């Protein structure tokens, strides 16, 4: 017997995240490690749980293995429920044939059954690309109060950056009258955060119509939202204030990681009322050796630091051996930085080994860009990885 759920969340986690290059070779973007012990998907999942949403469908497609394993039964987020909880929704074979998800809207369209199963009144659409803490229940309340067909969360961005986003033009009461995807000359600074609340009946109508349109690219931003707007549906913008960062590029991922550092970090992970939940590694406490130097760093369990770590974020079980120096770097976990090696201005994925006296990247001031080392990459003793280079164990240098 299924009880009704007022709102279910659908988390779009199938994207490749191609602008993260080597970091998403074998992992879907939502499963990319963030802040040492989190994955990007921990943020929307934790937000759901703290907002009282206990039924989350995670739509996967690209390289789902790590993501599936990470989510597991949903226990770390208390989403291992008898009724509801977190469910992985991969593309499947149906009587009429089998299709990959052709777009964000199509992914939801193929899973209308899931939403029907819980008889949800409202559907919250999320993506696994952003780092932020947000109370979705307030947005859903706003949606109910205004009686909108669709509510889109927006955040104020600087006007010079507005052309990178989907921009909403709104009336004073928050009603959206114009939506432009990455406009050259933006006339508003309200950027879509890719978070939508739909009234279920409206969502179903437009998704079913969209699926019949052979010219549609089955995308929320490109098709569903403009169509609804053109049809005169009530569309509301819900303004959000607070930390929100798209971590879809190497630079933004590096910056967001750095935001957890400092005396008063811009991104607070330890808010006792809104703790970011994650699957924790079972590792002993970190050990800091007698000659270690640690300045402005975030370090996770299982690490062994015998060398120097500055302005860096280290994931679990990283070993920085004597005389090695790590600065302005993000090391995702299980890495070994051997004696005398130097890692500067870099993002280093899991299981990377950096040999003795090897040099990765250049100091931040001098570097052309962030050096990126893909999962399992090995830099031989004395080897170098150039500043701004992107290397992966499978494809070699890129």
């Amino acid at each position, binding site marked *: 017997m299924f009880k009704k759920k007022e709102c279910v969340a659908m988390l779009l986690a199938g994207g490749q995240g191609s602008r993260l290059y080597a970091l998403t070779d074998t992992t879907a973007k939502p499963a990319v490690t963030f*802040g*040492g*012990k989190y994955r990007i998907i921990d943020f929307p999942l934790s937000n759901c749980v703290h907002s009282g949403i206990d039924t989350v469908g995670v739509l996967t497609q690209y390289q789902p293995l790590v993501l599936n394993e990470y989510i597991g039964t949903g*226990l*770390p987020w208390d989403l291992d429920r008898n009724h509801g909880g977190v469910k992985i929704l991969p593309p499947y074979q149906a009587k009429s044939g089998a299709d990959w998800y052709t777009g964000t809207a199509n992914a939801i369209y193929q899973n209308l059954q899931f939403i029907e199963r819980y008889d949800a009144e409202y559907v919250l659409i999320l993506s696994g690309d952003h780092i932020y803490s947000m109370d979705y229940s307030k947005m859903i309340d706003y949606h109910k109060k205004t009686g909108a067909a669709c509510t889109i969360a927006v955040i104020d961005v600087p006007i010079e950056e507005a052309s990178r986003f989907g921009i909403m033009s709104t009336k004073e009461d928050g009603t959206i009258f114009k939506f432009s995807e990455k406009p050259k000359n933006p006339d508003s600074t309200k950027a879509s955060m890719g978070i939508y609340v739909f009234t279920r009946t409206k969502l179903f109508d437009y998704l079913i119509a969209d699926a019949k349109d052979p010219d549609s690219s089955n995308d929320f931003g490109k098709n569903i939202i403009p169509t609804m707007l053109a049809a005169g549906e009530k569309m509301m913008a819900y303004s959000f204030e607070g930390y929100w960062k798209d971590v879809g590029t190497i630079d933004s991922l590096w910056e967001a990681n750095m935001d*957890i*550092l*400092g*005396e008063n*970090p811009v991104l607070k*992970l*330890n808010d006792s009322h809104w*703790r*970011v*939940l*994650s699957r*924790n590694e*079972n590792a*002993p*406490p*970190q*050990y*800091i*050796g*007698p*000659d*270690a130097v*640690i*300045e*402005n*760093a*975030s*370090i*996770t*369990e299982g690490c062994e630091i015998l060398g120097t770590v500055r302005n860096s*974020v*280290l994931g679990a079980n990283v070993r920085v051996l004597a005389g090695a120096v790590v600065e302005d770097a993000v090391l995702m976990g299980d890495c070994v930085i051997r004696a005398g090696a130097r890692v500067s201005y870099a993002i280093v994925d899991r299981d990377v080994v950096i040999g003795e006296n090897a040099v990765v990247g250049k100091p931040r001031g001098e570097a052309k860009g962030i050096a990126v080392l893909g999962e399992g990459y090995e830099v031989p003793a004395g080897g170098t990885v150039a500043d701004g280079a992107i290397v992966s164990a499978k494809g070699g240098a890129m």
Partner: protein
Amino acid sequence: MTAAGIIFSNIHDATIPELTGRRTMASIPFAGRYRLIDFALSNMVNSGITKVGVITHYNYQSLLDHIGTGKDWDLARRTGGIKILPPFITAYDNATAGRVYSTRLEALMGVMSFIDRCTEDVLVLSDCDVICNVDIANVIRKHEASGADFTVLTTTVDTAEQPLDSHAQVPVVDENGRVVDMAEYNGQQGRVKVCADIWVANRTYIKRVVTEAIAHGYKSFYRDVLIRNLAKDKICAVEYDGFFARINSLASYFSCSMRLLDPANRVNLFYRRNQPIFTKVRNSTPTRYSADAKVVGSMIADGCVIEGTVENSIIFRGVKIGKGTVVKNCILMQDTVTGENVRLTSVITDKNVVIRDGRELCGCESMPFYIGKQIMV
């Protein structure tokens, strides 16, 4: 041979009253993020045991809180899993009404129904005041090969490093690995072979000897069961040579903890292949070190904020070290908060202790200064 486990959670609590005032020996925090029972549980789980009974006595709320469903040790199971075995007290029998067991032997008698319901060939019995990482599956193999009724795990300790008390049993083992004599530790110095207080025994044997001993009105498991039966039954020893610590006083809690700051000991206890130590997971953030932090020779758990200096110390989860504060040779348990310009030397703070700005507290290694749970200084 199939095996089930039994853990004695309150054993020898009285040796360390400071830390067991509000908790069991089993739930004493240790090494930054563990409780003592984690070692006994992990040893069992790593050897393939999936049914563990935990015998409790009193003060076991903190233990229940730590164990939860047993999920963190993969012991939340339909079949088997972790079973808490609280004392069995009858309200109707005048002779024993309201009386909780007082010895290990009585404790075993009290859980006889658990032992009866087990179908496993052997029982692995373990105390919680010993810290080691043993391949118990290997001990069980040796137990089976020797055809013993009862196998005692032994280890050799240096009394300079690991002081012993009369709770330690010193066995005499012959060349065939058979225990021929056993006595309480009598003050001998140097390298001493002692029982590690982990045993493997045939289940039917335990059932028989415990029932017989109780029927005779005996009290002590070692004296009245093991030592009396040394000649009659086959009692063997298996030697363990990894990291071993036995906590029998606040000073030994301090020194055992500090031994883990030696990298060789830490690796020996925590990084044995296929033998990880499991514990309850808490959702902590990574530890944040400020630009002024200075940390050397220390073990630091997650969720801390370090803005001062930490030397040669063990820092548990969620501890905050304020600016200008210097912490040397200390053990600061979970969620201890130190203000600014605090000086702590050879201090043990229990959970949730607050040290206000500018305080200076100092103990010494043989007499660490202990600050109880939730005290504000």
